[in-house]
């Protein structure tokens, strides 16, 4: 327990220490390595001697000292005369806005010059304080692969010469959107991994929630940040009910709602209720509002489908996303009958972005089943099962198809 507390304290302090050191000395790439070494040192030393009186100062000092060592080593190696390293007193009593530092780090790690995979990896390491090995395991790639990805990302940051500071006001909105998108991707990777045996990679979802909570703490008045945090909490609240004992996927209509996390739902609902009136209303808030309506419904039938339809229409106006259109079709089917949903699906069939996707077939299968067209539903389930690249989803779709197979034709 004491170890867990020390670890969560360390993970919380990690971006603050890194921010303070980079703000003072620059060298983001090396400072990030120094921070990782300081975290390691803390993990062993604190376990033996207990947490120091001022853990933040301890971590900043050790990170700065390690950075000095790394810079010296690099200097010696490269014999770079112009890289003059000035000795400075320890940073222990160095006060700046930690809040800003953590935010600046997030903006750096989610810089548009980096690919999404690099943004994710770097954010988890530099802001989340996870080791490369932990990140590699979460994404099921060899550690060497993840090391390269992180090194490359840091190299790009170094080469682009991005200064350590908040982006100019004119860019702030777009850059924050990039940060939120990265956090959203981390959450999704954890919640519904596209490949691999596990449907949930719980730790990634929990880490995304933790990081989004930090951003919400730093920008409490930003309605979209609150919306994203609410969306994650309201979605993650259904996690336990989402899979059966053998890891099989359970659709929302059939989930045991008593297993939904009531506390998390209450927190998410409170967040989104407070955020919505603030405006402007962005896509995360609307998605959170939809998730809240699902979470608050006592049964699938008692869900406020007309309001969900209306919210999906707001979402469609905000972003031209075929997945939103697909969910809209499902909601319309729930209010106006499966034929109305199927008519919307037909219009979507021409969308090239969905051409290779299994989801339109899965939705069509559900709506055909609702409409009583069993044979066509079975065909659509099987088509969707062939197209998905997720093993749990394939099992689910094949099971749905098997349920619709007439008994006399089963071998």
């Amino acid at each position: 327990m004491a170890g867990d507390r020390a670890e969560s304290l360390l993970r919380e302090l990690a971006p603050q220490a890194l921010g303070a050191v980079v703000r003072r000395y620059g060298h983001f790439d090396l400072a990030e390595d120094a921070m990782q070494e300081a975290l390691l040192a803390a993990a062993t030393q604190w376990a033996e001697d207990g947490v120091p009186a001022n853990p933040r100062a301890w971590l900043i000092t050790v990170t700065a000292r390690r950075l000095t060592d790394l810079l010296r080593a690099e200097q010696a190696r490269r014999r770079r005369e112009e890289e003059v390293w000035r000795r400075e007193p320890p940073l222990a009593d160095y006060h700046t806005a930690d809040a800003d530092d953590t935010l600046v780090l997030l903006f750096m790690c989610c810089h548009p010059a980096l690919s999404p995979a690099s943004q994710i990896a770097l954010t988890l390491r530099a802001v989340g304080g996870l080791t490369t090995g932990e990140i590699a395991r979460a994404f099921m790639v060899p550690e060497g692969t993840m090391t390269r990805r992180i090194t490359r990302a840091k190299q790009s940051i170094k080469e682009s010469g991005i200064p350590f500071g908040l982006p100019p006001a004119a860019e702030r909105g777009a850059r924050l959107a990039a940060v939120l998108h990265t956090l959203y991707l981390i959450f999704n990777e954890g919640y519904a991994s596209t490949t691999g045996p596990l449907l949930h990679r719980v730790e990634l979802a929990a880490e995304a929630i933790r990081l989004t909570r930090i951003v919400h703490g730093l920008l409490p008045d930003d309605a979209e940040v609150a919306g994203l945090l609410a969306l994650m909490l309201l979605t993650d609240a259904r996690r336990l009910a989402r899979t059966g004992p053998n890891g099989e996927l359970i659709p929302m209509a059939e989930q045991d709602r008593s297993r939904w996390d009531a506390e998390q739902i209450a927190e998410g609902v409170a967040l989104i209720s407070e955020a919505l009136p603030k405006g402007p209303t962005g896509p995360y808030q609307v998605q959170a509002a939809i998730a809240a309506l699902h979470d608050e419904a006592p049964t699938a039938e008692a869900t406020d489908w007309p309001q969900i339809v209306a919210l999906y229409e707001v979402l469609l106006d905000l972003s031209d996303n075929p997945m939103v259109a697909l969910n809209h079709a499902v909601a319309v089917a729930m209010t106006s009958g499966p034929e109305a949903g199927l008519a919307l699906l037909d219009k979507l069939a021409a969308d090239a972005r969905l051409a290779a996707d299994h989801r339109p077939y899965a939705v069509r299968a559900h709506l055909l089943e609702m409409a009583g067209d069993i044979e066509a539903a079975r065909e659509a389930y099987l088509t969707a099962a062939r197209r998905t690249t997720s093993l749990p989803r394939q099992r689910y779709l094949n099971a749905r198809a098997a349920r619709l197979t007439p008994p006399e034709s089963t071998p």
Partner: protein
Amino acid sequence: MKYLLIMNINPNVLEALSEDERNAIGSGHEEFMRTIRESGEMISTNALADPSNSVVVRSKGGEQVVTDGPFVESKEYFGGYYLVDCETKERAVELAGMIPDAKIEGLGIEVRPVMFSAGSEM
């Protein structure tokens, strides 16, 4: 997203190549490996021995039978693969196009998404 880039080999096509062309394939693979290692997309690669070395284990009438030779007799066979982790299917196709085999008529790289992974270092 993980993809398997499957290299299909046709010995007749390879034998018809000149010495220089065959050398170019070798150095092309080295270059490709360097590229995807540096980009952090490489997971692993394996090249397989000639299918004349294969045996096939299958079931016939409730009993297992082991036979020499490949599963399917054909001019083309599965010669090896690259397992990569990349952002999009478009990138996987782009990577496949960088493999020297994709530049030789009669050979080809099949790009297939991976659905389940387990094993070493993961």
